[in-house]
């Protein structure tokens, strides 16, 4: 909320909970300290070119050899893979059984020979995303988390955590406060009353999201696991992120038309609003598209 850069979510919010729930003592001892200190940067090897919403169809193959897995295949949309030390990766260890039962959860050192990371530039003009290619990559057997074939269970556990962080309550709160300051300080013509009403609507939506998030967190404090309701948080949270960023672009008017301005034109906040607005079109797609979240809710919660 103070505007500090967010910590990378892949370690502390995602693979961390997986390791303390499913990892062996050796794995906990080896990886948790780096996750807590932030010394090890992680990335998430889930999506593949033909396995987006249909994640369980993933094809990246890990064949068990004497003392290692041999990994071949491709991951895509891998955020921060170009910086990461480690990837937690869903691989297919058994192609002969039902899709969901043939998946395993592997930890892969990004420096292993045979891994190639290629950049993908997103429509905000920046490089966050990557394709990751695996060609005969040898991964030690002890890097398997849980048992072979448990990958889908672990993946779903992790996704409930991912979806809760994706709700982005603190992020939306911060952006709304930036938007308020930009409106107040805006040197140019801006209908401030109209702007205030629009921001107020966003703030009320944020309040509802925030208290729903509190209730979910409180439930886990009582020992109940995150359930499918995290899908609801993901849907509402990402919709709000998009609304806030769109409001910022629209309230900025022409000040939002600049892309790579060398100097501020009116307001720097508004000048830079469009890149974020562009990038955030992805938030209703990543972490399981919002349409998939609705399918999850319909099935798991409503019994449809």
């Amino acid at each position, binding site marked *: 909320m103070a505007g500090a850069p967010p910590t990378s979510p892949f370690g502390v919010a995602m693979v961390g909970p997986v390791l303390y729930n499913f990892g062996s003592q050796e794995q906990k001892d080896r990886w948790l300290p780096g996750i807590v200190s932030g010394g090890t940067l992680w990335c998430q090897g889930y999506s593949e070119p033909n396995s987006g919403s249909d994640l369980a169809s993933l094809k990246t193959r890990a064949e068990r050899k004497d003392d290692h897995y041999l990994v071949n295949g491709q991951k895509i949309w891998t955020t921060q893979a170009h910086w990461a030390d480690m990837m937690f990766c869903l691989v297919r260890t058994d192609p002969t059984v039902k899709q969901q039962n043939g998946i395993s959860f592997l930890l892969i050192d990004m420096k292993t020979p045979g891994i190639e990371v290629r950049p*993908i530039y*997103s429509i905000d003009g920046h490089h966050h995303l990557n394709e990751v290619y695996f060609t005969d990559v040898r991964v030690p057997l002890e890097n398997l988390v849980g048992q072979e074939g448990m990958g889908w269970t672990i993946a779903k556990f992790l996704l409930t955590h991912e979806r809760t962080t994706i709700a982005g309550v603190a992020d939306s709160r911060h952006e709304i406060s930036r938007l308020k300051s930009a409106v107040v300080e805006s040197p140019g013509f801006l209908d401030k009353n109209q702007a205030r009403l629009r921001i107020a609507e966003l703030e009320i939506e944020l309040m509802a999201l925030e208290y729903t998030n509190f209730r979910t967190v409180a439930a886990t404090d009582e020992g109940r696991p995150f359930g499918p309701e995290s899908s609801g948080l993901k849907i509402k949270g990402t919709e709000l992120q998009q609304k806030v960023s769109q409001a910022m672009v629209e309230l900025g008017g022409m000040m939002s038309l600049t892309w790579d301005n060398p100097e501020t034109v*009116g307001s720097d906040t508004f000048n830079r609003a469009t890149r974020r607005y562009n*990038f955030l079109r992805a938030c*209703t*797609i990543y972490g399981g598209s*919002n349409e998939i979240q609705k399918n999850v809710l319909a099935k798991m919660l409503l019994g449809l």
Partner: protein
Amino acid sequence: MEFNLPENTTLIADTARRYLKDNYSFNIYRQQLEQQDTAGASRWSAMQELGWFGLPFAESSGGFDGTLLDVAMVVRELGAALCLDPYVDTVVAPGKLLEYVGSDSTLAMLSDLVEGRSKLACALYDYHAGYQVLTPSMKLNGRRLSGQKNFVPDGGFADTLLATALADGELVVLAVPLAACETIRHRALDGGRIANVLFDEVEITDEMILARGEKAEQALSRLLAYLRVLDCARMYGAAGALYQRTLEYAKTRKQFGVAIGSFQIIQHYLVDMFIDLQQLESMLFMAAVKAESEDASQRERASTAAKAYYADKAVRIAQPAIQIHGGIGVTEELDIGHYFRLITHCSLTHGDRAHHIKSFALLDEVHQGE
């Protein structure tokens, strides 16, 4: 749903589509993103040969007497092709302003523009005044012009600006050589070029003052009605392209063993896009005809309504287009995200949604007062 366009208008639209198919591509667009001067020389002369330079203007100025609907069809095709050639910003907009002022000297300038002998752009906005074009913050004190213009869409190559300023509270339209100003050019959201231009005690001679007072205000108000419709036309072309591409993608992209277009939610998204597109087309045709009316209230009512509607609905077509494409829709490699940026850009030029909704409401009050 087919609306019978005049035969000549259909011909103009078809020619534009063919020309762009043969001479423009997403690859050319991506190269152009990196270029400072966005008028590709070969295409610039090709467009002149196609008659586009003369299309919006009266025959007496060397033009072809085309209607706004004719020009809108060209601009629609430019939008559909994601073309960055700044035809509207450096030909249509300055040309119409000169024509609407309509003095001997401005009509002579217009002839030069139609012949391709001049490089003009309009400088109507600054961030202080925002969309309030009749009250620019630049001031003409005696013979000295001081202030700034922002968001000047000069294609990266204009050498003379048609700029607005206030002289003792009166609106003036001036022709100012860019050489007399400090110019910082940068890339705009749609990938085109815009400039910040600083005027520091620029000396203005009598010949540089093109119009003042009511004459200047009327010319500007007619110009803006015209340009709002062209913003809509460009958005329509882009929204139509997004709809076509997304429909095609939904039929071919497979997840869970089937085309994603077989899922009901995707079908509903696409049907909504289709319906919105129909309505957008209706608004475009309506506004293109009425925005050239001699009746000022008709011009304003039609063009502000169209722009307000487009700034909402065209954006609402672009958003699900990305969503249905998924991850690939937010990459630089695919045109989908670029169309999204173009539509967002056009939703903010010449008045955004909030501005036009307010204008529209105020127009109604004016009528009630009559």
